[in-house]
């Protein structure tokens, strides 16, 4: 095993882990407040990437502008979806929320594939070049992805666990009627939270566009892995989702060196192990 190989796979694992962490954090936030497993999360991620590509090719909108615009567009659609579809289902068994978002994912992915085909579309990296570290070449864009995702995860964690707004969110999950009696509009908060979670997914999608190809199935492929990560981290636990996301990305990268055939299975093996040793999740929420 060479240093180059090890470092290369570690970086790749860290990159994958960045997306796992961002996506599972979004899922955990939505689940924490709404008890909805957002099956459309992968589709929202994919639409984020497609929006960035669409804006660039049709209107010449740069990557940096798309990093702001695409999440806002997806969040707006997600909030409409929450008001029209998820709210009427909120008082039923939670599985209807999961199935409704699954249906949305099917429709969105199907429509995109029907319009743009199944093959991946390349998106040019906005930051070219990189730095030679002696043992490996580090492209600047990859460094940017890792730094930006860590910053976003930490920022979001701080917002929800340490600020007044976050306290309202957590309280609304526990006792919505009491939070409402303090004059806080809980339904509005739920709509905004769903929009925020979906926006995070879209942000990850834009971030992913130059690394992976933009394709209709990019969301559903990563989605199932992210589900396993959320199960390992403990449902609704934000710190659990972030830490597990990065860790399993790295574990996956290392597995590629030792036993490449098992790389796409190792996350599920970890999930089985976690269910055996820690049935309540690594970081039990509340």
């Amino acid at each position, binding site marked *: 095993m060479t240093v180059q190989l090890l470092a290369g796979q570690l970086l790749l694992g860290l990159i994958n882990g960045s997306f796992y962490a961002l996506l599972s954090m979004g899922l955990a936030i939505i689940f924490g407040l709404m*008890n909805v*497993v957002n099956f459309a999360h992968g589709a929202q991620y994919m639409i984020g990437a497609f929006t960035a590509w669409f804006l660039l090719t049709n209107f010449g909108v740069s990557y940096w502008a798309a990093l702001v615009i695409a999440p806002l567009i997806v969040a707006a659609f997600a909030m409409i979806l929450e008001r029209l*579809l998820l709210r*009427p*289902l909120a008082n*039923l*068994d*939670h*599985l*209807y929320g*999961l*199935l*409704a978002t*699954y*249906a*949305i*994912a*099917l*429709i969105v*992915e*199907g*429509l995109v*594939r*029907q319009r743009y085909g199944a093959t991946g579309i390349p998106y040019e990296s906005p930051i070219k070049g990189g730095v030679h570290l002696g043992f490996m070449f580090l492209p600047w864009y990859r460094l940017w992805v890792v730094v930006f995702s860590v910053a976003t995860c930490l920022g979001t964690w701080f917002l929800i666990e340490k600020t007044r707004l976050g306290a309202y969110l957590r309280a609304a999950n526990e006792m919505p009627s009491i939070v409402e009696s303090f004059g806080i509009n809980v339904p509005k908060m739920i709509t905004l939270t769903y929009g925020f979670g979906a926006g995070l997914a879209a942000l990850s999608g834009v971030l992913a566009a130059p690394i992976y190809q933009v394709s209709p199935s990019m969301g*559903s492929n990563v989605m*199932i*892995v992210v*589900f*396993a990560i*959320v*199960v390992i981290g403990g*449902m609704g636990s934000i710190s659990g989702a972030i830490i597990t996301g990065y860790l399993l990305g790295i574990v996956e990268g290392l597995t590629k060196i030792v036993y490449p*055939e098992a790389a*796409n*299975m190792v*996350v*599920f*093996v970890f*999930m*089985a192990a976690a*269910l*055996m040793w820690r*049935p309540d999740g690594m970081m039990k929420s509340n």
Partner: protein
Amino acid sequence: MNKKLLIAALALVAALIAPVYVYPVLLMTILCFAIFASSFNLLLGYAGLLSFGHAMFFGTSAYITGWLLKSSPISLELALLGGMLVSTVMAALVGLLAIRRAGIQFAMITLAFSQFVYFVLLQAHFTGGENGMQGIPRNALFGLIDVKDSFHFYYVVLGVSALALFLFYRIVNSPFGEILRAIKDKEPRVESLGMKPEQFKYLAFILSASLAGLAGALKATVFQFATLTDASWPISGEVILMTLLGGLGTLSGPMFGAAIVVILNDELAGLGEWALIAQGVILLVVIVFFRRGFVGEIAALMAKWKKPAAKSEVQATA
């Protein structure tokens, strides 16, 4: 009761003469998915457990049955049983872990495990990887009866399906089925009666998986091939749609649901992604407007119809 018997007799006659008018393979596909949807219905409709990974049992069983038939002169029914057995053992292992998390997480865990199984099947040598397994022979039934012709084979599939659906009927109408329904309604109360809900759920999961395995095994012998699609998550989604569309927790609902979705897929087969989009739209409409499903809504309508009729009768006698 006589009315029910009459309907059952009519359905039987229709099923017996159907292959004269309709392409037998299409009919057999409907029967396979009717078993598959019933197996899913047993779990969600009666025990309240949403499995998003039922394709792992369906697909694995299809591969095992195909492999048995291809590599040995085994008789057909033993090959089917072999596929079922493997999916049952798999469910015993997966269930042990998945049952530990209740509610919505059960769906995510089963989905993750089925993806794991998908990757295993992709890399295993006997499955043929991405090419799938082709040319599965239909060996003689009991080593005696030749079933190579699809018209004849239809009656075998019909017989097996009838047996499977009868089994399903007996399970949900047994004391065990009653307890499952009680767990679905109020789990703590069942627990307070001194029973262990987890054990009943676990058993329901295993029973459901072996029925799903039977469906997959039959499918492999009907089409004479098995592919990775059989074990992929869209199939798990499709069986959810069939069950919900037909009517969750009803006996005949999943059969109707299976028939509608199979025919829909058949009609839209040449139209690219539209089959999948249509499935999404139908699922959405069912979830928002018709949660009782096709059979459930009809039963509700008939109950409404009967009530005013009964009332006017009372008035007439009074």
